[in-house]
């Protein structure tokens, strides 16, 4: 088989909300070129699916000479509506859709040309309904494939849209929740439907490790409705103890919580979703007083002072000021109940944008919109900016579709929609998205952070190689669009620290140590260096306090130095037992993302809702972030899985070329059948 080329590789990464796809590897790896919503709509024929919601509109054919006029209108408008959207970000009126529309209209057109006699004939228009996804089928739920025909239809749609040549190897990122049989079914489908010469199915956690350029990591993938926690050691996914599709822990939890808090104030779910994605929603470190509460009250009336302290920087301000100490505040968990009950915080109010007004002067608005799209949507008008975490209220831009009245001269034209934006103001509820829900349902844990932390602890503790555990704790990778909310990762680390990290080694050096215990050497160098430090007993985990290591393992040099002592033979012990097994975690850290992929650097948080992520409302593939330089819509390392998929494709298909059985070839498939995928799936 001739070698595979970079530009032929097809990568598909299905997720519960968005399926990422790309044909060909660019010189420098970019975020996914295509983002398909993971949903299909039932087609007219039962058992078949359409990628777009098509609505049938019948209308009485209007007389005569103008028969072709409506049609022209349709197309014009289509182009018109899509134009600003394309410059925006997520909306490109999908080309295939246009084609389809035309095809389907052909008969109608034919009728028209046939004769003008059929004045009363009904014309059937098929049009895309962009305003709702009602009736959509989401084939993936919490990572599980719930609707196979629909899932396959989606894969086919992705494949057709990208229309790769036949000599295209396919890399498919698999969800941890897929069972072995699921993987076989997909393998069979891919080989028999797409006729691919080579196929690789890679576990998403592993792909994330490739993306981060690490061989060992504890991967936390926060999705829409679920969280996957996986311990990867030496590029090996530890299946045992893996947290697979932990339900109710994903981004939806936070939307639900926001809705719970704001629902009474007239917030719809879509509003909460966009609020969650906007950059005013944060998870504050525990102990930070909420703005507007007593502790910060004095700051509010004095915005000038705050402004002088450099409040101008619009950035998310990582160094969120710590609270004055635990004593003064009981922390968010304590306060939030009060907040709700007393109604301290103002009702979120809709500031601007009454729909009817809006429609009246839509032309003006359009212009405004396009201008606001071009620049970053900064509320630069505001003279003073406090850091978000200090503002009692903040507003975000809510986007929705509004139907335009048909124009007078063309009443037959299909309804047109524009996206309109309005600002909505929210109070401190925006900081409470990760707090415990009132309706806890069947859980007794208090919030998602705690659930995730517990799962991480369980997963790492289940890794059989105990010596790897501390390394895992120190290489936490938190990805997935659900983790995008500001402060999420930090809050998760705090939760872990609070619950699981062991107290500092100081507690170990007490009088309880045996008398012959030699004083441990903090630097490990000045005196006789302990030979055991380099021996097989050395804890490989970095970041472990050397004192702790010395204390817990100082028996090992003893064993090595004094063969007479009847302690265990080090070589035997190291053979039979994973060594260096001290309790973990002594510390917990996140892994730094690689810096050599410029396209994957976090871009300034754009405030455009809907761009950030998972696109409940986005239709069609996003032509979006084309080249470097174009705003990537803020897809940072949350989608590291796709970066990893590209790295892995390069390694598996181009560099390795199958020498180490990284992918399954067609020949092998023909010989061994789908179940052989388990020997290749990575």
């Amino acid at each position, binding site marked *: *088989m001739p070698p595979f080329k970079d530009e032929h590789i097809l990568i598909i990464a299905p997720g519960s909300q968005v399926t990422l796809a790309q044909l060909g590897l660019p010189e420098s790896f970019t975020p996914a070129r295509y983002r398909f919503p993971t949903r299909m709509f039932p087609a007219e024929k039962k*058992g078949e699916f359409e990628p777009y919601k098509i609505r049938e509109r019948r209308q009485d054919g209007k007389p005569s000479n103008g028969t072709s006029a409506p049609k022209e209108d349709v197309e014009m408008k289509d182009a018109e509506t899509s134009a600003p959207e394309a410059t925006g970000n997520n909306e490109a009126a999908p080309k295939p859709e246009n084609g389809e529309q035309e095809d389907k209209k052909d008969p109608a057109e034919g009728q028209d040309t046939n004769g003008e006699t059929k004045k009363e004939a009904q014309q059937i228009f098929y049009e895309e309904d962009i305003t709702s996804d009602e009736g959509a089928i989401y084939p993936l739920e919490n990572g599980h494939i719930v609707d*196979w*025909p629909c899932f*396959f239809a989606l894969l086919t749609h992705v494949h057709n849209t990208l229309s790769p*040549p*036949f000599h295209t190897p396919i890399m498919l990122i698999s969800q941890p929740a897929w*069972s072995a*049989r*699921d993987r076989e*079914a997909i393998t*069979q*489908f891919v*080989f*028999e*439907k797409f*006729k691919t010469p080579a196929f690789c199915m890679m576990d998403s956690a592993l792909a994330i490790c490739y993306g981060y350029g690490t061989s060992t990591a504890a991967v936390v993938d926060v999705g829409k409705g679920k969280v996957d926690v996986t311990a990867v050691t030496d590029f090996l996914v530890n299946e*045992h103890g893996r*947290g697979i599709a932990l339900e109710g822990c994903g981004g939806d939890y936070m939307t639900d919580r926001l809705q719970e808090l704001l629902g009474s104030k007239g917030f719809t779910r879509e509003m909460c979703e966009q609020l969650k994605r906007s950059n005013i929603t944060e998870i504050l470190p525990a102990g930070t007083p909420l703005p507007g509460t007593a502790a910060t009250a004095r700051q509010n009336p004095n915005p000038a002072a705050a402004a002088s302290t450099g409040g101008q920087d619009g950035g998310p301000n990582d160094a969120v000021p710590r609270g004055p100490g635990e004593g003064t505040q009981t922390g968010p968990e304590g306060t939030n109940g009060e907040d709700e009950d007393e109604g301290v915080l103002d009702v979120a109010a809709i500031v601007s944008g009454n729909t009817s007004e809006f429609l009246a002067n839509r032309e003006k608005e359009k212009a405004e919109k396009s201008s606001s799209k071009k620049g970053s949507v900064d509320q630069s008008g505001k003279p003073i900016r406090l850091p978000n975490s200090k503002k009692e209220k903040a507003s975000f831009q809510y986007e929705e579709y509004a139907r335009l009245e048909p124009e007078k001269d063309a009443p037959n034209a299909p309804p047109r929609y524009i996206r309109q934006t309005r600002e909505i103001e929210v109070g401190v509820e925006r900081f409470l998205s990760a707090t415990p829900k009132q309706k806890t349902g*069947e*859980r*007794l*844990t*208090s919030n998602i952070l705690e*659930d995730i932390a*517990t*799962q991480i*602890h*369980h997963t790492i*503790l*289940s890794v*059989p*190689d105990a010596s790897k555990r501390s390394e895992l704790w120190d290489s936490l990778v938190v990805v997935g669009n659900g983790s995008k909310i500001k402060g999420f990762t930090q809050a998760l680390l705090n939760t872990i620290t*609070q*619950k699981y990290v*062991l*107290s500092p080694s100081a*507690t*170990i050096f*007490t009088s*309880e*140590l*045996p008398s012959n215990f030699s004083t441990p050497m903090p630097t490990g160098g000045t005196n006789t260096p302990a030979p055991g430090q380099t021996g097989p007993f050395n804890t490989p985990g970095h970041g472990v306090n050397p004192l702790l290591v010395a204390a817990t393992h*100082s*028996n090992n040099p003893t064993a090595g130095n004094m063969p*007479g*002592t*009847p302690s*265990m*033979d080090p070589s035997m*012990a190291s*053979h*039979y*037992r994973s060594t260096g097994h001290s*309790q973990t975690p002594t510390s917990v850290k996140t892994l730094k993302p690689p810096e050599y992929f410029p396209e994957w650097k976090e871009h300034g948080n754009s405030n455009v809702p809907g761009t950030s992520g998972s696109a409940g409302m986005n239709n069609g593939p996003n032509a979006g972030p084309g080249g470097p330089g174009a705003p990537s819509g803020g897809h940072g390392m949350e989608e590291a899985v796709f970066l990893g998929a590209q790295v892995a494709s390069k390694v598996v298909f181009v560099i390795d070329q199958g020498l180490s059985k990284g992918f399954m070839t*067609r020949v092998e498939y*023909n010989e*061994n*059948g789908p*179940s052989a995928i388990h020997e290749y799936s990575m």
Partner: protein
Amino acid sequence: MNPSIPPSTAEYGGDEVSAIVLDPGFSTTRAGFAGEDTPKSLIPTYYGKYTSEGQDRLIFSDDVFVTPRPSLSVHNPMGRDGIVEDWDMAEKVWEYSFTSRLTGPRPGNPFQNGLNDIADGELPTEMEGVETEEKPLADSPLLMSECGWNPTKAREKTIEIAMEKWGTPAFYLAKNGVLAAFASGKASALVVDVGASNISVTPVHDGMVLKRGVQHSPLGGDYISSQIRALFKANTPQPITITPHYLISSKTAVDAGQPSQAKYKTFPPGKAPDASYRTLLEERTLSEFKECVVQVWPGPNKLSATGPSGVSNEEVAKSNPGRPFEFPDGYNQVFGLDRYRVVESLFDAKAAIPDTESPFPAPTQAQTVPELIKNALNGVDVDIRPHLLANVVVTGASSLLHGFTDRLNQELMQTYPGPRVRISAPGNTAERKFGSWIGGSILASLGTFHQMWISKKEYEEHGPTIVEKRCK
């Protein structure tokens, strides 16, 4: 290959399916495809049960450990002696073990899997009836393991479930001792299996269990846990209580030996999980303790004896530096001699730490590992004893206790100074934990094993009693 020319249409037409190997234990249930090196699915045999909205709900798998639920109680369908007590639940747990990660709930309707072109109008023909009859294992042969002392009734019940409930086309029931021997590549071996609820010693000769020699005692991992609890209770100045993580909202660092200053969680009344749940979660902490702290006195001689240099072994053990351990509530302490004492009774019944409240009665000398081995060897033919001693296979997760094999080696050398004693214990943790599963995986993927399967047809002809005849 030209990228624009479609490939020739040669397609896979076979229907090879690999068998599923199911190795149910007391603490965990292992399942996976034959031919693989570790079981893909590992779930606790414990399951959780709670009531929500008037309905009983069951939780399987690791979720039990992670999410506490209101009034959750934890149960185990297996009895302490390794024999199933609650068949209905055992069936559910086992079924979950292979459906969750391996086979998926049900195979889909072939008409809708996107691979079959369907002519118009042919589609919605009545497939309903067919689909509902589909059973979870309808297309995979199943190899299951059992303990060496499984009674006939239990064996018959097992094949009944496999054939009638799961619809497997072929079935075999193998003794886990034999499988563990196969896993280390031996047809004859003395298998010492240290599990959670039992220690068993199984003499295997030419792939057959020598029934008279099979020995087992309850001094498994759970017994060690009970010893550790006894130690904690007797701890001075104050007894140590284990508070599992789910009861703690945050902890504060304290000095060793100082009382903990954790913030505890409160549950609304009537919602707190059952005591059995707490016990299960405490067990998690205890197994961490076993991994990090507990060590078997490596010998020679017992911990209570005097070493060759005239110093008592306890003194030597004391002089080894202790190991620190921090409990979920932040309490921490260094364990010195005590970490040897908790396991000493596996070898020396007199060394057991007394605890009147423990569910385990004080062990007798006959229950210790060396005695079990002695009895097992006494139960077999004199001629094969040396051969067995030269092939001692140690398996089971509790045998991973630090220093266990060294001590066992010492004990055997002392008891049998003549013949060559050779212990084979895989260094790889997974191989030790899943010894019998791996053996099953090897066995079921052998070509020669194909004639051993009990087919569905044979079962229908002879009924469940066939298992006694075929699976010796």
